[in-house]
């Protein structure tokens, strides 16, 4: 029976928070570039909006929504650890934040379909 000092829910929550943060940071310049197009280059922006309706982009958008939700709920979880009295049900909090994030993605997907 082998394990690792990393094999527990709170470490995975840390990992999810870190990975979602990095991916969102990579997404942000693209987001700003599209906003720039909306102001300065109408025709290219219209083409982009048309392209963004394709199913693959919608799937990517769903992933983006899940990433945002993961990073938001994970951040609230960390603030709660640091500024509220300690609670012993940390693993439950990890499960709830992850569940909420996946549910947010599902709701987004349902709206798209």
């Amino acid at each position, binding site marked *: 029976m082998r394990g*690792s000092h990393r094999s*527990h829910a709170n*470490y995975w929550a840390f990992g999810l928070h870190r990975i979602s943060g990095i991916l969102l940071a990579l997404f942000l310049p693209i987001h700003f570039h599209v906003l720039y197009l909306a102001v300065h280059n109408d025709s290219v922006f219209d083409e982009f909006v048309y392209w963004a309706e394709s199913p693959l982009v919608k799937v990517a958008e769903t992933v983006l929504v899940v990433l945002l939700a993961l990073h938001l709920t994970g951040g609230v979880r960390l603030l709660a650890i640091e500024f509220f009295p300690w609670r012993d049900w940390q693993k439950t909090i990890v499960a709830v934040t992850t569940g909420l994030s996946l549910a947010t993605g599902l709701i987004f997907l349902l709206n798209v379909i």
Partner: protein
Amino acid sequence: MREENLIVSVWRGDGEQGEYVDYRVPREESQTVLDVVTYIQRKIDPTLSYRFSCRVGMCGSCAMTVNGKPRWTCRTHVSKVAPDGKLSVGPLRIMNVVKDLSVEMSDFFEKWVRAEGRFHPTKTRYDDFDAIKPADNKRKIASAGIECIGCGICYSGCDVVAWKAEYLGPAALNRAWTLVNDVRDGGQIARLNAIAGDAGCHACHSQQGCVENCPKHLNPTASIAGLKRVTAFAALKGGLK
């Protein structure tokens, strides 16, 4: 059916050179990992180096990495960690290996000093005792953290220590938190300054490996969270350097 022999891989060598060597050790009822290591040294290879003292979970000297996780070996039953009869025993990670299973713990304990982990008395022997009620809130918080045996398991299981060598680590910060809640202590400003820096409590990512692995079931993450609050409010009030 239990195997008659355990297959035990033990780290032999120092921090730079070495390898895991397999030993066959007879399986016994109620056998601990420390019993296994002791059997190897006494019956198979007397050159094996490891550290232990009390054998009853008080002294904190027998911590090793057992099947990938840091554990106190004297209180870790083989049946719990190796139901398949395979055991891997290595030195604690992060700390430098002296030889085989013995690690250099100077950094670990120097960080307790750096975290102002010593008591600063405010009274002399001629003064009367402080009367502190056990139900006092600060006393309860301090009591929750004082049972640390200094085994280094939390430190060895913390990735922040692995990534940031100067980070004070969960044990030293937990110690600082017990003293922050000791109303008799007169070194609070120096202590808050010591633990508020880059290497202090704010470096903690709340991964909670320390809570997960602490054999005494202490909660260094909660202690560090307490330090984060106290230092944040002290900084707002201008109480930090």
